């Protein structure tokens, strides 16, 4: 029998039961959608990371108490919680030791616990500002640029001045019609004078980077306390060539600052763009495996759905099968016909899932502000898997149809 005929037959018999075919198809669509959308989004992210997005400012390395994916498991988290904080004293010691080896050394501590909300003239920002106590190197170390006004300077830090450099969102919210420079705002029970505004940075991984305000680290400790806070230290070497040498020196200085003996391991984490990339990639890998397993289960369920519907269809069409056999259809023809229908449902669902998945994944990528991709590999794999499901789960019903005794099938009412 001609291939064209088989396709036409499958099309017309599926068309006779549109709702049922569509619902069966939907199962496959969901399974394929879940895997394709996740793979598209992760692929897009990874793509842009590998092609040069920097987590840190360029060339920068950073020391911190906690590793990136500290949320990975309870046991490891405990280990890091018990680790000593990096105190401001230790950070200052590092700062001194590294003088002359690096142009920018940024000490910073985050007030994540503050639920900071800035108020000016009765107007309030959201209560989720990122408050950072730091020094003038923060901008370079975190790839911010100053919009206007001035940056923090060493004197601000020495004198613990109550000054703030604020992000674009804060400026927009509180000062839509006037300059914020020189204005005094209240934040978490303290008042600050705004001296500078950062240029807009946009979102990164879906988080706004413009609802930030930075103040001298010394002021931060005075206002919000120093106990239970840990300081992150970012260092920028003089040049790319000196990166590795400076990193070695930095690790040495850090060990001294932490008072480690020669036989003790580093009790701090070292962040480089490379280490962040590989951390991201390993997280992405876990998400991928998760998406893969989930969609495999979904596809399995969808496959069983196809088998169920095909069995119903064979029973309903017993008479038709009898008629076809009585006028010369071979068992093979009947097998092909039903198998094609199963593959057809599966493939149609798969193609729809791929289209929706790519759209969904790319919408996510769009929101994360990374370049869009089409995951060819996964799309092809999706089609192959769908064919396999169609054939795998369609075979038994098709076999039952093909094996029907012509006369009994004809007699069926």
């Amino acid at each position, binding site marked *: 029998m001609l291939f064209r005929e088989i396709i036409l037959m499958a099309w017309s018999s599926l068309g006779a039961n549109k709702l049922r075919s569509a619902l069966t198809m939907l199962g496959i669509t969901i399974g394929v959608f879940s895997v394709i959308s996740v793979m598209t989004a992760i692929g897009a992210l990874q793509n842009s990371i590998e092609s040069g997005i920097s987590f840190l400012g360029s060339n920068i390395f950073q020391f911190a108490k906690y590793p990136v994916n500290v949320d990975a498991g309870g046991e490891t988290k405990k280990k890091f919680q018990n680790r000593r904080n990096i105190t401001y004293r230790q950070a200052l010691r590092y700062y001194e030791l590294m003088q002359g080896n690096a142009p920018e050394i940024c000490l910073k501590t985050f007030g994540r616990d503050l639920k900071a909300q800035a108020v000016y003239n009765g107007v309030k920002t959201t209560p989720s500002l990122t408050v950072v106590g730091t020094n003038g190197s923060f901008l370079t170390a975190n790839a911010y640029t100053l919009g206007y006004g001035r940056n923090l300077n060493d004197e601000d830090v020495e004198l613990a001045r109550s000054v703030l450099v604020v992000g674009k969102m804060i400026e927009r919210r509180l000062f839509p019609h006037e300059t914020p420079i020189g204005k005094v705002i209240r934040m978490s029970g303290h008042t600050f004078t705004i001296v500078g505004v950062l240029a807009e940075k946009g979102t990164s991984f879906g988080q706004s980077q413009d609802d930030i305000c930075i103040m001298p680290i010394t002021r931060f400790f005075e206002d919000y306390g120093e106990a239970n806070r840990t300081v992150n230290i970012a260092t920028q070497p003089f040049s790319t060539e000196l990166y590795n040498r400076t990193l070695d020196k930095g690790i040495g200085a850090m060990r001294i600052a932490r008072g480690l003996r020669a036989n003790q391991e580093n009790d701090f984490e070292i962040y480089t763009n490379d280490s962040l990339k590989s951390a991201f990639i390993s997280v992405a890998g876990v998400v991928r495996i998760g998406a893969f397993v989930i969609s495999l289960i979904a596809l399995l369920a969808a496959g069983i759905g196809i088998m169920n519907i095909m069995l119903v269809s064979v029973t309903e069409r017993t008479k038709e099968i009898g008629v076809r056999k009585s006028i010369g259809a071979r*068992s093979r023809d009947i097998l092909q016909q039903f198998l094609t229908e199963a593959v057809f449902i599966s493939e149609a669902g798969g193609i729809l899932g791929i289209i929706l998945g790519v759209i969904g994944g790319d919408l996510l990528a769009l929101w994360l502000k990374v370049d869009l991709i089409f995951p060819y590999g996964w799309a092809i794999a999706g089609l192959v898997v769908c064919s396999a499901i169609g054939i795998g789960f369609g075979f038994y019903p098709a076999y039952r149809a093909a094996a029907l005794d012509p006369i009994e099938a004809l007699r069926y009412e």
Partner: protein
Amino acid sequence: METLDESLNIRPHGRSVIEIQDITKRYVMGEEIVHALRGVSLRIHRNEYIAIMGPSGSGKSTLMNMLGCLDTPTSGRYEFNGKNVAEMDDNELAEIRNREIGFVFQTFNLLPRSTSLRNVELPLIYAGINPEKREEMAAHALQEVGLADRMNHKPNELSGGQRQRVAIARALVNNPSIILADEPTGNLDSKTGGEIMAVMETLYQRGHTIILVTHEADIARHARRTVHLRDGLIESDDYLPLMESEFAISSS
């Protein structure tokens, strides 16, 4: 009339197209065993017109399905064109049903969602004939049964007689040597039944072998040979006298 010659030699001889010997068919239904056929032997030659008669339950349909290679006997031998049917595989049987035999059923057995044209094309699809040729042949077959203007109608848009004519067009479209008709007029009124029998007569005249199951003497009269079944056995096997068969032709 050219049939005169044939009618003189009305008892055919020579090689037969169908030959069955001592065919039995048993159905086991739980405790009970039904003997549908108890040992039937029959020889059918090319271009015969046979009516198989008998009361309901006498085994007519069972015999017919056997002859059409749709069913297999419990015992006995069936040779189709000199080949033992028991030794044929699924593909060979399908090929015989496709090319050698055209089946016409009492209940028409058309595909309800397909048009007349598509229904008639079906055997050609399984014969692997290309779409253009197929459509032409199907249209021609429908024309021959007088349904040229009903090609794109679905079965539920046709009358009983028209449906049966579609079924006949389907049976003859692949130009099979044998037409098997199991009570083709059973679901039709006598006028429509007469029209169907006229189509059968034309096919016979054109050289097809016609095997017709019926329990109505009126219908059986169209045939040249009548086999009577009773309780799964052949009771009589008669060739009609020349005069009566001539009468049958002129009256239809």
